[in-house]
C-alpha cells in the first residue's frame, strides 16, 4: 500500500473509532483533558445553523430573482406592446419613473405594493397577478415558477416585439389570468 493510501485508511479508521466510541466515555475523557464539552457542542450547533440558514438564504435569493425576472420581462413587453416609453407608462399608470426603470432593469428589486396595484390596473391584469410575479407572496407553486421561468427564457432574447413575442406574451397573460382566477374561486 502506498504511504498516502495508508495514511488515508488510517485517518478513516481513526475517525470511525471516534464516531463509534461510547459517548459517555468520550465526554469524560474530554473533560479530563480540559475540553469544555458544552462549548464544543454549542460551537457545532452554531456552525450547523449557519450552514442551514445560508443555504435557505441562497434558495430565497435564487427564487426571488427568478420571480422578478418574469415581472421585469412582462412589464417591458406590455409597455412595448402598447408603444409606450418608460416615461409615458409612468405618467399614465401614475407611478414613479424610477420605479418603472428599476422594475425593468434591476432583477433583485421588489416594487412598492402601490406600484404593482397601479400597473395591474393599467394593463388590465387580474388583481394580485403581478404581486405573485414580484415575489411578494410566498404562495408560489413549483408549477408557477416553472411557467414564469419558461416565459422569461423564451422572451428575454428578443429585441423587437415581433409576432412570436406577441404570441408568447398573450399566452403568458392568458395563463396568468386563468391561474389567478382559478385560485380566487
Amino acid at each position, binding site marked *: 500500500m502506498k504511504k*498516502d493510501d495508508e495514511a488515508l485508511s488510517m485517518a478513516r*479508521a481513526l475517525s470511525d473509532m471516534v464516531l463509534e466510541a461510547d459517548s459517555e466515555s468520550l465526554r469524560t475523557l474530554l473533560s479530563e483533558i480540559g475540553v469544555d464539552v458544552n462549548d464544543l457542542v454549542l460551537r457545532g450547533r452554531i456552525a450547523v445553523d449557519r450552514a442551514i440558514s445560508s443555504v435557505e438564504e441562497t434558495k430565497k435569493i435564487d427564487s426571488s430573482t427568478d420571480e422578478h425576472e418574469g415581472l421585469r420581462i412582462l412589464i417591458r413587453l406590455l409597455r412595448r406592446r402598447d408603444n409606450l416609453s418608460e416615461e409615458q407608462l409612468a405618467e399614465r399608470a401614475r407611478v414613479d419613473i424610477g420605479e418603472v426603470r428599476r422594475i425593468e432593469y434591476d432583477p433583485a428589486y421588489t416594487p412598492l405594493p402601490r406600484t404593482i396595484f397601479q400597473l395591474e390596473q393599467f394593463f388590465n391584469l387580474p388583481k394580485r397577478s403581478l404581486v405573485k410575479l414580484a415575489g411578494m407572496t410566498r404562495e408560489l407553486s413549483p408549477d408557477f415558477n416553472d411557467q414564469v421561468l419558461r416565459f422569461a427564457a423564451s422572451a428575454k432574447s428578443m429585441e423587437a416585439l415581433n409576432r412570436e413575442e406577441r404570441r408568447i406574451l398573450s399566452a403568458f397573460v392568458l395563463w396568468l389570468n386563468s391561474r389567478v382566477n382559478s385560485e380566487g374561486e
Partner: protein
Amino acid sequence: MAEDRAVEDVPEKEYASPKEAEAAIQALTDDGMMKLMIVARYHWKRRKLRDSLSPEELLGESITRTLVGNRRWRRARISLLQHLDRSMESISGHAVGDVVAENEAIEQIRADEVNPKTSEARRFQRPIAEERLLARAELAEVEALFVDAPDAFAVLRLRAEGYTESEIMRLRGMNKRGYESARKKAEREITKYIFRSKERSHEKR
C-alpha cells in the same frame, strides 16, 4: 471507500434527498454533535489548516454541500456522521490543495525569474512528493502515540486495513475483553492527540 466510486450505478433510493438530510442534521443529538466536532478538529489538524479554515467552517461546509446536493448522503450505506466525516475529509484535502496551489504560484513566479527551464518540471513533481512526505509524517505521528500500547495500535492499524473485530481478535490472539480494552486505549490516545494544544483552532462564534 465504495462511496468514492463515481462510476458506480447507485439506485436513487439509496440516497437521502436534501430535505431528508436536513431533517436528519436538525435532529443530531448533542453526542452526535460532539463527535462531529472532534472529527472536524481531527481533519483540521491532520491537514494543518490553521487559519485557512476552522473546524467549525469545515463542518459547516460539509453540511452546506450536503444540503445543496453537491455531496449526497448515501444513507443506505453509511451513517450521517460518517457521511459528514468523509465530506470534511474531502473538503480539508481540497483546502490543502488550494494552499499548495497558491504557494506553488508564488514559487513559480520566483523560480521563473531565476531559471525558467527547471521551474516547469518542479511544478508537476512537487505536490505529489509533498503529499507523500506529509503522509509519511502523519503515519509516524500516529504510530508515535502508541509506543507503549502495541495492542491499541494493532487494533487501529488492522481496522485501517479493513479487518473486522472478530478477525482482529483472532489475528492478535485476543479475547473480547482484551480487544475492548485495546480499543478504548486507542480511542483515548486518538482523542488526546486531536486536542493536543500545539495547534489551537481560532474559536469562532
